[in-house]
């Protein structure tokens, strides 16, 4: 049982606050760190990985501080986001070097390469690898000492669907074995498929925490805004406002459209086509106007 504890931790760069008073506990199992790009996920992971000092607060591994403490790397394996990784070595040489730096040898390196199914290409230079292959060799280098904690920064970036599935399967297995696995992502679906526990970071703040159902509900229950154009906007508006799933409708004369605010997402999406059909109104445009990830996240922060 290995736990990373982040306690009232902030980190700023000059005047920019990247992480703002975050507290969380990351325990065994797979945890997803979710947030839009630039939210502070990498900064947070870098503090957990001991590559960055917290400006205030503490980041500890089972009680001992991680910053300036090389001994923690016996327990932590890190898969960094950056690509730089001794491209002039073969995959095998790279993993063997990582094993040696942990005081281990060829046997452990071979086992790690087998775990990520990279034996077939282990004697090729890393510079010839695809993105997914590089990611798997990075993974092998992080697993070589059988760590109890695995930190991965945007591990699925640039992977094709098959590679993504393989890596998810591997991470799931690591989590099931009782390891503490934390990965960051800005894609909700990725996190939802893999993580049993989700931490949401938005604009440096800890916005939400829990299992994916709770987070999903928070995200779908927020008010949704739609822009709708139809053959008879006013008749449609009158029919929709009679239903409790609609909170407000504005007739936008400039756009020649309706701006609708729905409070019950599921109900509204079945209501709209039904009402239109019953009233003999043709729907010309139905487009969500605030579906960007950022707006979803900023709603979460406000909630």
């Amino acid at each position: 049982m290995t736990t990373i504890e982040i306690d009232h931790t902030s980190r700023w760069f000059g005047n920019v606050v990247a992480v703002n008073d975050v507290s969380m506990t990351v325990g065994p199992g797979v945890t997803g760190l979710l947030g839009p790009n630039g939210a502070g996920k990498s900064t947070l992971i870098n503090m957990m990985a001991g590559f960055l000092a917290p400006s205030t607060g503490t980041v500890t591994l089972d009680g001992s501080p991680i910053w300036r403490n090389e001994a923690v790397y016996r327990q932590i394996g890190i898969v960094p986001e950056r690509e730089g990784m001794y491209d002039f070595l073969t995959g095998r040489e790279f993993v063997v070097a990582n094993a040696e730096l942990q005081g281990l040898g060829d046997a452990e390196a071979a086992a790690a390469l087998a775990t990520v199914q990279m034996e077939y290409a282990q004697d090729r230079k890393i510079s010839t690898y695809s993105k997914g292959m590089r990611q798997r060799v990075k993974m092998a280098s992080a697993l070589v000492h059988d760590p109890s904690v695995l930190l991965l920064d945007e591990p699925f970036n640039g992977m094709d669907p098959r590679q993504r599935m393989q890596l998810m399967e591997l991470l799931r297995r690591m989590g099931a074995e009782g390891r503490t696995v934390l990965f960051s992502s800005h894609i909700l679906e990725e996190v939802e498929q893999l993580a049993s526990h989700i931490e949401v970071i938005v604009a440096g703040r800890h916005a939400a925490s829990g299992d994916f159902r709770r987070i999903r509900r928070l995200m779908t229950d927020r008010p949704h805004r739609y822009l709708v154009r139809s053959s008879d906007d006013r008749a449609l508006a009158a029919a929709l406002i009679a239903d409790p799933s609609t909170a407000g409708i504005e007739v936008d004369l400039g756009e020649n459209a309706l701006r609708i605010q729905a409070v019950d997402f599921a109900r509204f999406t079945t209501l709209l086509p039904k009402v239109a059909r019953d009233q003999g109104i043709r729907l010309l445009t139905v487009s969500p106007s605030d579906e960007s990830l950022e707006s979803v996240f900023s709603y979460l922060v406000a909630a």
Partner: protein
Amino acid sequence: MYDPTVARLTYRALLGRRRAAILFVLPALLIVIAVAVRMFAGADDQVASDVLGGFAIATMVPLIGVIAGTGAIGPEIDDGSIVYLLAKPVKRPRIIFTKLVVAIAVTMVFSAVPTLIAGLILNGNGQQIAVAYTIAALVASIAYSALFLLLGTVSRHAVVLGLVYALVWEALFGSLVPGARTLSVQQWSLALAEKVGGGGAITSDVGLPVATVLLVAVTVVATWYAGQKLRTLKLAGEE
């Protein structure tokens, strides 16, 4: 203190890059000059001393030192691959010490060996000139490696800064401003060469005791400080 894995990675990174071509070009140039001078001017102690002092020690050794010293760590910090060394239960000063050993070895091989060969070609080691300058090159290799390794650890512009030091400070100021010579690795190493070479063919502006103390002090302090900087190296900038 020496880590064979770190050393292996550093050697391969240093000698595998395009930059390494300079490591071969400069010594080759020195040998070509030596051969040409010997053919046209014959064996002359003063000429030999001028070539070795003016090109080998004043230009080639510091340049090789810049390539080897900054190249032993700078590119790894730039492309982020140093993460794989730092995320290990290995003391950071141990990483620096190993990289220093590698940088020194590379600088010595590519500067002291060609200096000796060039000296033998120029005047067959008359007045001990070849050996004297080789010793100067060996000693300077140590101090330059430590200095430029530190530079590579603390600055992203290490190569440029290193070149400015090597060419502007050592070569230009060193010959124009007498005071600057006291703070010059080149002069310190020449103080040693002065003792070895015969007949006053080699001169240094710095006395041997001062030179020795400064050489040791610069090497030790630069290495220690680089180790400290690596302990707090921040890999992540702003997102």
